[in-house]
């Protein structure tokens, strides 16, 4: 988390605002964040506890953050007094206040919310070449669209991770959700990794991409397109020897190649299925 140390520099731009919303309604607020180095690559870090994160790449030179707090109904332990019947002679005017901090420092943007007490959906537009570091816990998915040539890291617990029109490398994991990725390009030499426990992992590769896929599902199945050449040779046996005793273990991974093979894409799930597809 080195970037946090740099935040105190003169170039730091801090925007802090609290939004109050009328109950029953959804409050929406948008912030345009100008960049210190417009047109250059950048990084976006988002960490929220409750809520969804949606990031899309666009042709602009600013970062636009739109936040929506969800309806109170499902997310708060209702206070007795704020129930449908307010005290006599009173009405509800504000509730569900939340803070959203946006910090920009040399094209590194950090979006932070105190979303432990409220649920916030974030919709963020960034230039195409913004590396993404996204993390949420529950109450929403992580969605990314149209990001090119940079690394994407996404971590969730309850939510799914849905990435479309993105390039490798991607490192993503979730406990309960699915991971569904459509690559527009896989030419980066760095490995990608996907992990889920209960969810499916569904990867779609570009027609001309070269990749080596390494898949594992403990209780589910692995499905591949006809275009994926599965390495059906004998499974790898790992031999270890120690003090004259030999240990053998058979590797659990399945290997396959797309076109001529290339950087490694590993996909592992315990209870879900793995799908490896190649665009037609």
């Amino acid at each position, binding site marked *: 988390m080195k970037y946090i140390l740099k935040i105190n520099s003169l170039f730091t731009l801090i925007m802090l605002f609290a939004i109050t919303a009328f109950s029953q309604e959804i409050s929406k607020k948008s912030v345009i964040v100008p960049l210190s180095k417009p047109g250059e690559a950048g990084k976006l870090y988002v960490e929220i506890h409750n809520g969804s994160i949606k990031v899309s790449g666009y042709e602009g030179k600013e970062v636009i953050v739109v936040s929506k707090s969800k309806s109170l109904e499902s997310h708060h332990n209702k206070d007795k007094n704020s129930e449908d019947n307010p005290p006599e002679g009173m009405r509800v005017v504000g509730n569900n206040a939340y803070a959203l901090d946006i910090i920009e420092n040399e094209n590194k943007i950090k979006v932070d919310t105190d979303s432990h007490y409220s649920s916030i959906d974030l919709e963020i537009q960034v230039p195409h070449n913004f590396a993404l570091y996204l993390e949420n816990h529950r109450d929403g998915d992580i969605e990314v669209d149209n990001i090119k040539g940079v690394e994407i890291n996404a971590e969730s617990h309850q939510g799914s991770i849905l990435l479309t029109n993105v390039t490798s490398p*991607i490192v993503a994991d979730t406990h309960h959700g699915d991971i569904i990725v459509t690559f527009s390009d896989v030419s980066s030499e760095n490995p990608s990794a996907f992990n889920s*426990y*209960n969810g499916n992992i569904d990867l779609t590769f570009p027609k001309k991409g070269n990749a080596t896929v390494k898949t594992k599902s403990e209780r589910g199945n692995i499905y591949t397109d006809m275009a994926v050449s599965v390495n059906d040779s004998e499974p790898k046996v790992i031999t270890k020897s120690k003090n004259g005793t030999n240990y053998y273990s058979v590797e659990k991974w399945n290997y396959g190649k797309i076109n001529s093979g290339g950087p490694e894409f590993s996909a592992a799930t315990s209870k879900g299925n793995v799908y490896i597809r190649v665009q037609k």
Partner: protein
Amino acid sequence: MEKKDLKPYLMEFLREELDEETKIAIQSQLKVDPALQEELDELKEVFGELNKIPSHKPDIALKENFQKMMEENTIQSPGLFSNIQHWINNFQITISFKQMAYAVVLLLVGFFFGYNQNKGTVNAGERNQQLSMEIEELRKNMMLTLLEQPSASERIKAVNISYDLEEADPKVIEALFFTLNNDKNSNVRLAALEALTRYSFNKKIRNGLTESLRHQDKPLIQIALIDVLTEMHDKSLKKEFKDLLQQDELDADVKEKINESLEILM
């Protein structure tokens, strides 16, 4: 005594440094010789003027400057080092390009001669071993460097390099454990766990993995660790697993996994 002969003595006469004889001679001559008297008067006048000129006392600054100058000169004066430098410079000038070329050729011939001599004694197997050791060292260093990269993908790459290492180097093991227990990214931690599993026949590594289970808070990694530990069929793990079950807020999937593992370990 002739007048001319006495003239050179006039100075000494004035300073009264003459012997008696010459003094008397000059005195007697002065009475008869006005020219000599005139000469003496002139000399007297000059002496008087000279004495009037105040003698300058050198001021302190002058002395200090002088001393400073002396010191500077002492520092700058060529010492042993600069002598050597000077000598080297001269040496370079005196060696011609041709001579230099001869020296290089001679060195290369010597090198190849020695190399071929060695070739005879060291067999191919040993050479290959040496080479693979060097590659091993290179891989190890590359892995340790990559593990410090900010990109999660780069760190996974680093962990994957460890599969190419033949030996369980303590530094590599330590780095893998550090990654398993501290890396921010779950996928990187899982990759490190998988790499360590290869060495799980080693008691120390088994203990390290058991220890790690107490630190992990992410269900995905807890479950993966429980899987690895269960495969070791170490009965002592039962207590470890039961302790974990006591934790509040333990994920339902982790609980389920522990109960399955406890059945296997029975």
